[in-house]
């Protein structure tokens, strides 16, 4: 199906759905690249014609709606675009904020937000009208917002599930999920986990937290700005460690209930570690089925880092799980996709529908050959409501030759680090800082 939103050029959803498929992990690299490049060219043209900001940005760089593959590195936009709004509190300037969204969005937003009190309710207002404003935050507390329309949301779920399908053997509809993330949140990492788990196994998803409101996250990340916020912050600071302890107890209870059974336990790594420690300290038997999976996402930002070896030991001891069934996920708020460790070699695979471009220290694109390290940018044509061609604040080492352990044909990540002087804004960091005392 081709969809025209406002310009003349059609967004080819069939092409995107063909690209975002687990089968492409195993196909000949050249064939998938051809398909991916076709999709990127289509997506670029669509955004060029439908996104005011992107149009101006490309024009400034001397680019138009037709792009050659060798020029892909020129179309990436800075991630700062998604937090370039000027007001301190979007919910207090709803019309102004909508104007900003209108400028960076490639689909029209045909409703007038009222800004009903809290940030959470403001985001809910957008969501009720079909536009998810998932967010992430930096240490400065300025939230990054990504406008995802229904198609882009569907592609996010599809990207996750197809990546999972290529990696894990899940019995759809029957898997039991235990999630160390909130049941209701617009924090993108939490939202993704919830909707993907619900999609895979509706009705079988347990959340350790009930709700994490955007207002609380913002307050914790940027600090209080008024005497009212100071008081709120005081109580939240007191309350949150208790919340985390309760979440751990809830998870442990659920794990005990499911002793020996297959479950999928997912959460930020610090919560997995604290849960494991709690189990061991209290002598609890929470050994889950050998066919279970444990997944972490977001890294350790804000908390002390635990090595993979030490995590493996803890996981084996506390949950009785083969460390090969512990997988780490790497994603970004701006991206619809995750890179998942394969179970054969614990190597993170770049999804076949995503083009990774690395830039060297002189900001030149690095040829996609062998093992290379550089500043990470990605091209993801599956975002219809914003251009998914984005530079990030991460530095990656990528092996374009692929995985030595499994039969997927996609490149793998060898290391991930934050670039200096770019604020840490990983979703796990938000959770870590939000719940820290």
């Amino acid at each position, binding site marked *: 199906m081709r969809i025209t939103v406002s310009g003349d050029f059609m967004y080819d959803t069939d092409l995107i759905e063909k690209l975002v498929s687990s089968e492409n992990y195993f196909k000949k690299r050249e064939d998938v690249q051809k398909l991916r490049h076709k999709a990127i060219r289509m997506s670029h043209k669509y955004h060029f014609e439908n996104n005011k900001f992107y149009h101006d*940005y490309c024009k*400034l760089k001397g680019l138009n709606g037709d792009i050659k593959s060798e020029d892909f590195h020129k179309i990436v936009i*800075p991630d700062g675009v998604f937090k370039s*709004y000027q007001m301190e509190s979007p919910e207090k300037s709803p019309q102004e904020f909508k*104007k*900003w969204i209108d400028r960076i969005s490639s689909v029209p937003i045909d409703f007038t937000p009222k800004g009903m009190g809290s940030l959470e309710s403001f985001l809910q207002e957008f969501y009720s009208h079909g536009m998810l404003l998932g967010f992430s935050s930096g240490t400065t507390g300025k939230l990054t917002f990504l406008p995802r329309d229904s198609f882009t949301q569907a592609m996010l779920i599809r990207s996750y599930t197809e990546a999972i399908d290529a990696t894990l053997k899940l019995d759809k509809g029957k898997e039991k999920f235990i999630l160390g993330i909130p049941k209701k949140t617009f924090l993108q990492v939490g939202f993704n986990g919830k909707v993907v788990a619900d999609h895979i196994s509706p009705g079988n998803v347990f959340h350790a937290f009930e709700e994490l409101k955007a207002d609380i996250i913002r307050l914790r990340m940027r600090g209080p700005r008024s005497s009212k916020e100071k008081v709120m912050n005081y109580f939240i600071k007191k309350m949150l460690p208790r919340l985390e302890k309760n979440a751990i107890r809830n998870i442990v209870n659920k794990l005990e209930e499911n002793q020996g059974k297959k479950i999928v336990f997912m959460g930020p790594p610090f919560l997995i570690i604290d849960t494991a420690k709690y189990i061991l300290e209290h002598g609890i038997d929470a050994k889950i089925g050998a066919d279970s999976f444990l997944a972490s996402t977001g890294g350790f930002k804000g908390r002390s880092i635990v090595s993979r070896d030490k995590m493996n030991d803890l996981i084996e001891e506390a949950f009785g799980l083969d460390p090969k069934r512990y997988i780490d996920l790497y994603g970004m708020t701006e991206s619809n996709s995750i890179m998942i460790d394969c179970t054969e070699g614990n190597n993170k695979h770049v999804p076949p529908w995503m083009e990774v471009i690395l830039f060297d220290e002189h900001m030149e694109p690095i040829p996609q050959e062998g093992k290379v390290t550089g500043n990470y940018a990605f091209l993801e044509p599956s975002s219809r409501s914003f251009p998914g061609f984005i530079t990030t604040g991460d530095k990656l080492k990528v092996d374009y030759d692929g995985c030595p352990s499994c039969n997927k044909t996609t490149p793998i990540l060898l290391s991930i680090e934050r670039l200096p002087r770019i604020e840490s804004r990983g979703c796990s960091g938000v959770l870590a800082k939000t719940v820290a005392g």
Partner: protein
Amino acid sequence: MSNLKGYYLPKSLKSLENEMEFSEKKINDYTLLLPNINQDNITQIVSGLKENRKKYLVDMPFPEIAKVYGEVSRTWSDNKYEKKKIALELLPVLTNLSPELIEFFQFRSIYKIDEKTINFLSNLNLPPEVFKNFTPIEGANTFVRAYAGFRDKIALKKISQYNKELELVTYITPSNVPGFIESLGIFIASIVKASGLIKTPSVQPLFAPLYAESVAEKSKAIGETIAVVPWAGGDQSIEDVIFRNSNVVSVVSSTQTAMSVKGRVDELNRSGIPIKGCYHGGKFGIELIGREMANRDVAGLAAIDGIGYEGYMCGSPAFGFFVEEGGELSPIEFAEALAGEMEKISRSIPQTNFFRKLREVKIGEIISRPEFDGGQRIFPSSEHNFAVIYESNFNLNPIGQNRLIRVFGVKSLEEVLDKMKPWKEYLQTAGVAIGNNRLQKISELMGKTGFSNIRVAGTVALPRLGEAWDGNYPVYEFFIPDKIHWTSINAIDFENEIKELTKIKNKVIKDGVYSSSL
């Protein structure tokens, strides 16, 4: 592959090299050797420098010191000088600045370290009128004004020049202005007849050793009183030895680094070790164009200010270019003229892809704002060398680096200065183009607002003799407390300066930056 020393030690301390461990840094066809300095090494270096100072420098007449540095400058101005050729090949790799930019802004500043400069600074004696108004300084084309409380004025009067013996001056140097601060540290130490220890920035440990070797080539004696070494900033085992042995520690770095050093120097002062700390942290600048000067010539000079060090010098007009309405060119026309001049100058002083990409990132953020649908106008470079953005809404945001030039139209310059008050702590330099009849009044207002360097448009990134720096006064700052705020104007006759500078700018456009006629 040739080896280069990423350090400089006096000949008398050469044997230390056998005790030091080295790491290597490959740059093009060179290997830069960088010592991993330990506490024993640095102890020997500082005591050696102090001994050498007594032997070689204390009794050296000022004219002899001046002659040495004058010869060094003339040597560096020779495009065939081997060390300069190496510097111009390797500094661009290390800093991403183009060789032409390094030549025009950095090396041309170094060429000015001559006999006149040294004689001026070694006989420095500012008249008491500086406390009342901007006063012309003898021997320099400069006005100076000092702001201080009553007690500090009295204290300054009691200080006679260089009444304190300085044995060791330590300079911690930054990476954003490669080379100039290192050479300043070396020659100023010699002026106060102290030995000089220079810490190089990790990004660029190349220039200071080359410059120190040049000094030693001209004077073995002065060469014995200089050391240039890298160390990890904040390494207490090393810095404790250095600070305890230094009479002056001057830090030119980020505010965070400067404040970190200050904390430790203050602690040593409290324990009875007298050290004068001189702290030059992060600052921002602006450009002010009066309506009487809103013309194409001044747009050309403003372009030079926008290009300088790609906007990363502490005085660069990162806040923007503020143009008064009612002149020959309206603010938006001035922005367009500025873009035209930037295109021409960028051909002589090109930008590297590194800064081009950084600008694109920032532009992306700016044009994603909704106001870009209306009140803003962008004048891009057809060759992707810069971007001039005209903004109708006044805002203060120090993002004008990487040749991202922001022009604002204002009713009056006084209005801008009033709005700068909350940024007082971060203000330093203003490039200014106004008529001579407004100079004293506006300068007084600027001094009170917190500016320390008022520079005629076209010279923002080109320091001149006799100027204040960051609210302090060079050399004086080693001897007096920091309670006096110094402000300088770097030209007596702005109108004439603008004519002369325009001629230089046109030569740069026509003949490039290596022309001997510049």
